[in-house]
C-alpha cells in the first residue's frame, strides 16, 4: 500500500464505570489508504464506534485510550488540543448515526454548515453561503436555497443525514468517518445515502471509514473490510475476497445469517444463527474471544489469544482454525 493516510496501531480503549473497568477495544490496528473505503463490521457493542471516535478523542472522560493513531505524521492521540481541533472537521470529519439528534434543533441548517466553514476556512459571509449551497447540491438536496434557512425538524430523516454529510465534507477532509450512517433510516433512503458515499469516493477522492453491522452495506460500497468481535480484530480482507473466502468462523456465521431470496432447491436453506452471546467486556479472557460460540473451538483456542496471520494475499485472520 502506498503511504497510508491513517495508521492505527495497538489501539485500546477502556472505560471506567461504576461497575468496574470495561475493555471496549483491545489492541486494534488498521490502516487507511488515500481514497479507499474501509468497512468496519461487527455486531452492536463490538467496539467499532468506540474505535473510530477515539481517533480524534471524542470519547467521554471516563475513557482511557492507549496506542497510536498516526495521521499526517502526527499521533492524534497525543496531539495538543488546539492542534487536534484543527484536524477535527477539517481533515477528519464524522457522520453519526442519528441525524435528528446530531443536528442542533435551535439553529438553521445554513448556520450549522456556515459554522464549520468559518471555523476552518477564512471565508466571507457570502463565500460561505455560496459554498454551503454548493455542498447541499453536492449531497443532492433539492431546493437548497430554501433549506439553508430551515431548521432540522423541518427536514426528513434522509435529508438531515445528507446535511450531516454536507457539513462533514465542507472543508474537503481527507477522511470521512461514517458511523452507521444508514441504520436509522428507511431501507429505501439507505440506498440513496450509499450511492452518495460512492459518489463522494469517486468524485472527491475522500477516504471513507464506514462503520456498520450490515454486511449488505459493506458489500455495496467498501474496498476493504475489517471484521471486529468483542473489541478485537477478527479478520481483514479486500471485500470480494471476504465474501468469497471468509476465514474466521464468526465471519462465516455472519454471512450465513444474511437472508437470501429463494433461488431454487439447491440454495434454499435455513438462516444460520450464531449460538451464544457476546462475552462480557469486563474481563479480557486470555483466549480467543469467540471460543464459546465457535464450532471449531478446542484446547488451543481456549488458552491462547490468536494472533493475526496472513492466510491469503492481503487477507488476515486471527484464528487458530481458519478456512472456508
Amino acid at each position: 500500500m502506498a503511504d497510508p493516510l491513517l495508521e492505527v496501531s495497538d489501539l485500546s480503549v477502556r472505560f471506567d464505570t461504576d461497575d468496574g473497568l470495561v475493555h471496549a477495544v483491545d489492541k486494534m490496528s488498521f490502516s487507511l489508504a488515500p481514497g479507499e473505503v474501509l468497512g468496519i463490521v461487527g455486531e452492536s457493542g463490538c467496539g467499532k464506534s468506540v474505535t473510530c471516535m477515539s481517533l480524534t478523542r471524542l470519547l467521554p472522560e471516563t475513557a482511557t485510550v492507549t496506542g497510536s493513531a498516526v495521521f499526517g505524521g502526527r499521533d492524534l492521540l497525543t496531539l495538543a488540543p488546539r492542534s487536534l481541533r484543527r484536524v477535527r472537521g477539517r481533515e477528519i470529519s464524522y457522520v453519526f448515526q442519528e441525524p435528528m439528534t446530531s443536528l442542533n434543533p435551535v439553529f438553521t441548517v445554513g448556520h450549522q454548515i456556515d459554522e464549520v466553514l468559518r471555523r476552518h476556512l477564512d471565508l466571507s459571509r457570502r463565500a460561505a453561503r455560496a459554498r454551503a449551497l454548493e455542498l447541499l447540491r453536492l449531497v443532492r438536496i433539492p431546493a437548497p436555497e430554501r433549506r439553508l434557512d430551515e431548521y432540522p425538524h423541518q427536514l426528513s430523516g434522509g435529508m438531515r443525514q445528507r446535511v450531516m454529510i454536507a457539513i462533514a465534507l465542507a472543508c474537503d477532509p481527507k477522511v470521512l468517518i461514517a458511523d452507521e450512517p444508514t441504520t436509522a433510516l428507511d431501507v429505501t433512503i439507505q440506498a440513496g445515502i450509499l450511492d452518495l458515499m460512492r459518489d463522494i469516493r469517486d468524485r472527491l477522492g475522500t477516504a471513507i471509514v464506514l462503520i456498520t453491522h450490515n454486511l449488505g452495506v459493506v458489500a455495496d460500497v467498501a474496498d476493504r473490510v475489517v471484521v471486529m468481535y468483542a473489541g478485537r480484530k477478527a479478520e481483514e480482507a479486500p471485500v470480494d475476497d471476504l465474501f468469497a473466502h471468509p476465514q474466521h468462523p464468526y465471519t462465516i456465521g455472519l454471512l450465513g445469517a444474511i437472508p437470501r431470496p429463494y433461488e431454487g432447491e439447491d440454495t434454499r436453506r435455513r438462516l444460520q444463527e450464531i449460538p451464544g452471546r457476546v462475552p462480557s467486556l469486563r474481563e479480557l479472557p486470555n483466549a480467543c474471544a469467540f471460543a464459546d460460540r465457535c464450532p471449531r473451538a478446542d484446547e488451543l483456542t481456549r488458552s491462547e489469544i490468536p494472533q493475526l496471520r496472513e492466510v491469503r494475499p492481503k487477507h488476515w485472520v486471527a484464528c487458530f482454525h481458519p478456512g472456508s
Partner: protein
Amino acid sequence: MGGFLIRRAGAALVVLVIASMLVFLGVRAIPGDPAIALGAESRDPALLAQIRHKYLLDRPVPVQYGHWIWLALHGDLGVDQRELSVSHTIVSRLPITLELAALSMLLATLVGIPAGVIAAVRRGKPSDHATTGVALVGLSVPHFWLGLLAIIWFAVDLHWLPAGGYVGWAHPLDNLEHMIMPALVLSAGFSAVLMRQMRSSMLTSLEADYVRTARAKGLSEWRVVGHHALRNSLITVTTVMGLQLGALISGAVVTETVFQIAGFGRLTIEAVNQRDYTLIQGVVLVAAVGYVVANLLVDVVYSLLNPRIRIS
C-alpha cells in the same frame, strides 16, 4: 405557533372566568348580609339600602356577577371603605411592586444562570458542590427571614441601607437604595431555582448528540458550551421562569410587609386586615388576572424562542 398559543390563551381565559366567579361568590359567601360586609359593617338602614341599590343585591346573583364583570372590564372596581376608588388605589401601588419584581428577576437571572452553567461544566468538582450547596440553602431559607436578617445586619448594625420604606422615581438613587435589599432578598429563592434548573438543563444539553457533532467539527469548547448547549438550555429554562411567577407574587407580598413598602402586595394584606371586601375583591381579581397574563406572556416568549414551536 398559533395553535399552541391559542390553546394556552383559551385555557387562561377559562381559568380567569372561573377565578372571577370564585372571587365574586367568595364575598357573597360570607355569612350574614352581604350589604353589611360591603358597607364596612355599618348598620345604618339608609346606608344599607343605598348599598343594596348600588350593588344590585336584590337582583339574581348571575345578574350581579355580570354587572360586576362589566364594570370591571371598564376599569371600575368600585370604591373601598373609605370611598376611594379601588382601581385608582391599585393602579397607584402596582408599579412599585412591578419594579420590585422586575429588579428581582433581573438579579436572579444575572446570578442564577451563570452559576448553573458553571456548575454543569465543572460537574462533580468542588465548585459544583459549593454552588449547588449554596443554591439548596437559598431554596430553604424563607425570604422574609432573610429580609429580617438583612435588616438587622445592613440597617441596624451597619447603617448602610435604610430599613424600609419606598422612595419614588423622582429620586432614582434613593429609590435604588431602598429597593436593593428587598430585591436581593426576593431574588434569593428565584436564583436558587434558576441555578438548579440551568445546571440540570445544561447537563442534559451537554450529553446531547449535537454537542458531539459540534466537537467533531473542531469548534472550541467555549463555542460548544456557550453557543450550542447554552442556547438549548436557556429555552428550556424559560418555562421555569413562568413557574416561578406565582412564587414571585407571593414573595412580593411578604417582602413588602417586611420592608414596609406600600406596594400592591402589601395592599392585599391591608385589605384583609381591614375587612374591606370591595377592596379585597378588586385586589384578588387583579392578582389573578396579572398572574394568568404573565404566564401567557412567558408562553409567548417561549414559543418565539423555540424554533420547533415557532415553525410547525
